[in-house]
């Protein structure tokens, strides 16, 4: 399983764009990059998943360079409600083996 490395914590002001970068140097050919969000007292919630280039949905964008050894989760114009822990995972196609790292604790400041 590819190991991921991401910052332990980040602070941001409301209204700013937040970019959280994740390193996954040992990603395999059939691995997907998946991000989850976890609020206090809740289970993780799927945000976005991608294989290469750029993926965008109503919540976030995911940028993946050609070598796929890293990825960046971009949250546009964050609000206080985006304060959460964000987990970057690398998951094999067809696999349900999720290995959670420590995640990035994002604190949005008024």
């Amino acid at each position: 399983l590819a190991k991921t490395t991401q910052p332990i914590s980040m602070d941001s002001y409301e209204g700013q764009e937040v970019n959280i970068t994740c390193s996954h140097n040992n990603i395999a050919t059939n691995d997907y990059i998946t991000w989850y969000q976890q609020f206090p007292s809740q289970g993780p919630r799927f945000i976005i998943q991608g294989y290469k280039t750029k993926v965008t949905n109503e919540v976030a964008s995911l940028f993946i360079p050609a070598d796929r050894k890293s990825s960046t989760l971009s949250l546009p114009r964050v609000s206080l409600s985006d304060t959460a822990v964000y987990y970057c995972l690398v998951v094999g196609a067809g696999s349900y083996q999720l290995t959670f790292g420590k995640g990035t604790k994002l604190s949005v400041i008024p």
Partner: protein
Amino acid sequence: SAVISQKPSRDICQRGTSLTIQCQVDSQVTMMFWYRQQPGQSLTLIATANQGSEATYESGFVIDKFPISRPNLTFSTLTVSNMSPEDSSIYLCSVGPGQGYVGANVLTFGAGSRLTVL
């Protein structure tokens, strides 16, 4: 995505007792998993609950301590047996895509059951 209901949401238990956590899903799902999240830590997979067969446990977790039932495609239970304070954690149920779903391998998680063992 599936909606998961876990009971109890929280409980305070005495050392040496056992507690069963229930996980109910609003649709039939093939894959069901149990995770543990210790205070301030990340999630660790305990086991995969297989319908019609014994659960598959991850390294460090054993059936005698965490017996699991999966009687049908919408329900599972996890029992934490002979509890000690070290078992104080949040226990989360999660499920994979429902039957017939074609897409990415994404899991949906319940809100978790917060256990405190005194």
